C-alpha cells in the first residue's frame, strides 16, 4: 500500500513539475518563436548575475519569464469594490485548478516496473507494475471533458464578480464560445472512441502502437485526420487564444473577464492559459500522435514493419517514452503558437458561426462516416 503511495507522489510530482515548467518555458517559447517568425530577435535582456561576480547569465532571454513572475508577485493586488469579493478571489483558482486536474488522466509514459528499474527495490515492490499516469480511469476522456467544462465557471465567475461591464461582456463571450466549442470538441472525439472502443487513455495509446496497411503507424491522426484538424481547432478556441481570443480582445474589451484582476491573480489566468496549451498538446499527442510511444514502439521494444523486432531494456523504454512524450507535446505547443502568431482575430459572430455552422456539421459528418465504416468493417469481419 505504502509503495503505491510513494509511486503516486512521484508521479504527481513529475506531472506538476512538468506542467509548471511547460507553463513557464512556453512564455519564453512564445516570445522567441513569435520574434523569429517576424524577423525579430525577441526578449534577450533579462539576466541573472552570479552573486559577488560580474558574470551575467542571459541564456537567450530565458530569465524573462522569471522576471515576469517576480513582477506579478510584487505588484499591488488591486481589488475592485465588488459586491462579491469571495467569488472575485476564488475565480482565478477555478480557472487554474481544473486545467491541472485534466492532466491526471493523461498517461505520460508506459508501464513502470520499479523492481526492474532498480533491483534493490524488488524486495519492497515485488512484481508490481504501475501505468505512468496519476490516475488510470476507465472514463479518462470523460474526466477530461468534465474538468475542461469547469474552466467556464472560472471565467464566468471572474467576469460577473468584478462588477465591470467589460469583464461581464468578456465573460459572456467566454461562456458562449467555450460551450459551443466544448460540443464540437466532444463530437470530434466520438469517432475516435468508436474506433478504439474505449475511453481509457492508456488503452488508446497502447492501441496506437500497432501498424495499419503494413507500414503506417496506427496513430489516431492516420485513422481520423479530419477529426485531428477539427480537434486542434476547437481546442484552441476552447483555450481562447488569438484567432479565437474574443473573450479578452484587447482592442474591444481591455482584457475581457480579467480586466479587474491584477498582480498574481491575473498571473494565474495567464499561467492557466499557458498550461492549457500544454494540456491541449498532451491530449492531442495522446489521442492522435501515438502518445508516449515512438512509431512502431510498445512497452517491450520496437516491432518494425517486416517483423524486425528490437527488444529494449526497461530503463531504455521508460526513458524513451518520457522523452518522446515531452518532445511531442513541445512540438504541438509550438504548432499552436505558430497558429496564434499567424492568424488574425475572428469577429464575434464569425466565431460562433464557425462553431455551429461549420465545425459542428463537419464533426457530425465525420462521426457518421466513422460509424458507418466501423459498422461495415465489423460486418465484414464477422
Amino acid at each position, binding site marked *: 500500500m505504502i509503495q503505491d503511495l510513494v509511486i503516486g507522489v512521484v508521479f504527481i510530482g513529475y506531472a506538476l513539475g512538468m506542467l509548471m515548467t511547460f507553463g513557464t518555458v512556453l512564455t519564453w517559447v512564445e516570445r522567441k*518563436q513569435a*520574434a*523569429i*517568425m*517576424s*524577423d*525579430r*530577435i525577441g526578449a534577450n535582456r533579462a539576466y541573472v548575475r552570479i552573486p559577488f561576480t560580474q558574470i551575467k547569465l542571459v541564456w537567450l532571454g530565458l530569465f524573462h519569464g522569471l522576471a515576469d513572475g517576480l513582477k506579478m508577485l510584487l505588484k499591488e493586488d488591486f481589488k475592485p469594490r465588488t459586491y462579491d469579493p469571495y467569488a472575485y478571489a476564488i475565480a482565478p483558482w477555478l480557472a487554474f485548478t481544473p486545467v491541472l486536474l485534466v492532466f491526471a488522466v493523461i498517461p505520460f509514459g508506459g508501464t513502470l516496473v520499479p523492481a526492474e528499474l532498480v533491483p534493490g527495490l524488488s524486495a519492497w515492490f515485488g512484481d508490481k507494475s504501475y501505468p505512468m499516469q496519476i490516475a488510470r480511469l476507465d472514463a479518462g476522456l470523460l474526466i477530461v471533458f468534465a474538468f475542461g467544462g469547469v474552466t467556464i465557471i472560472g471565467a464566468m465567475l471572474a467576469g460577473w464578480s468584478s462588477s465591470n461591464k467589460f469583464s461581464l461582456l468578456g465573460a459572456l463571450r467566454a461562456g458562449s464560445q467555450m460551450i459551443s466549442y466544448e460540443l464540437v470538441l466532444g463530437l470530434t472525439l466520438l469517432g475516435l472512441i468508436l474506433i478504439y472502443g474505449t475511453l481509457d487513455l492508456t488503452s488508446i495509446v497502447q492501441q496506437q502502437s500497432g501498424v495499419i496497411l503494413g507500414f503506417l503507424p496506427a496513430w489516431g491522426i492516420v485513422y481520423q485526420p479530419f477529426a485531428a*484538424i477539427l480537434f486542434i481547432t476547437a481546442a484552441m478556441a476552447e483555450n481562447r487564444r488569438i484567432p479565437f481570443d474574443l473573450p479578452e480582445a484587447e482592442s474591444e474589451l481591455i482584457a475581457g473577464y480579467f480586466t479587474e484582476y491584477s498582480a498574481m491573480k491575473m498571473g494565474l489566468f495567464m499561467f492557466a492559459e499557458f498550461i492549457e496549451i500544454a494540456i491541449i498538446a498532451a491530449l492531442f499527442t495522446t489521442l492522435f500522435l501515438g502518445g508516449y510511444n515512438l512509431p512502431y514502439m510498445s512497452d517491450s521494444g520496437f516491432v518494425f514493419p517486416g517483423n524486425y523486432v528490437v527488444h529494449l531494456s526497461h530503463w531504455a523504454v521508460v526513458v524513451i517514452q518520457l522523452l518522446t512524450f515531452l518532445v511531442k507535446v513541445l512540438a504541438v505547443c509550438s504548432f499552436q503558437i*505558430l*497558429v496564434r*502568431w*499567424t*492568424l488574425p482575430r475572428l469577429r464575434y459572430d464569425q466565431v460562433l458561426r464557425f462553431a455551429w455552422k461549420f465545425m459542428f456539421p463537419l464533426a457530425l459528418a465525420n462521426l457518421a462516416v466513422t460509424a458507418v465504416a466501423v459498422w461495415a468493417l465489423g460486418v465484414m469481419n464477422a
Partner: protein
Amino acid sequence: MRRKPYQRKAYWNRPTMTWWERVYFFEIARGIAVTGGVFLHNMWRWISGRKGALTTYYPEETRADYAAGNRGKHILTQRPDGSPQCIACNLCATVCPALCIEIDAAFDPEDAAHPKYPARFEIDYSRCIFCGLCVEACPEDAIRMVKEVPQLPTFDRGHMWLTKDELLNWNPQRDVAKPYPVAGKDRKTRGPA
C-alpha cells in the same frame, strides 16, 4: 412611362474570392506554411551561427550606415597643440534652444593669443535636440557635429552629460569635409596673432 427603380450606387467591390479562398481552410494552411517557412529560415540562420534578424543590438553594436550629414554628437576642434579651439565666448550656450550647453570660462596668462579658454565644457544629451545651432553660432569653428552617436543608453540621467574630455576625443585630421585650419593659413585672423 415607368421609371427605372433607384439603384444605390455600389461603393464597394463585389467580393472576388475564389471558391478555394472562401473555403478558408486551405488559405489558413498556406498562411501557416508562409510563417512557418519564415520561422524555419530564420531559425536555421540562428542555429548555424548567423543572425536571423536585421536588428542591431544597440548599445553593443552600432550601425555603420549613418548618413554622412547625420548630426549625431558634438566634438570640439583642437589647435595643433591639442588645446581646444573654443574661446569660451558662450555664444553657443546662448543660442542653444534647449539650454543644454554649460561652459565655465577660465583665464590662461601663458597663452597670449587665446587667454580665455573653457575650463568646463559640458553638454547635457538628455536635453540636446541636435539642431546644430551651436555649430552655426560658433565664431571660431570650435564646435562641430559628427555622424557618430555617443553611448547614451544608461540608467542614470547624470551619465548623459558629455564632458570636455569626451568632446575633445576626436582626431581632426580625419575630417576631409571640413579641414582643420592650418596655422598660418587661417582664413581670418582675429586679434593679435
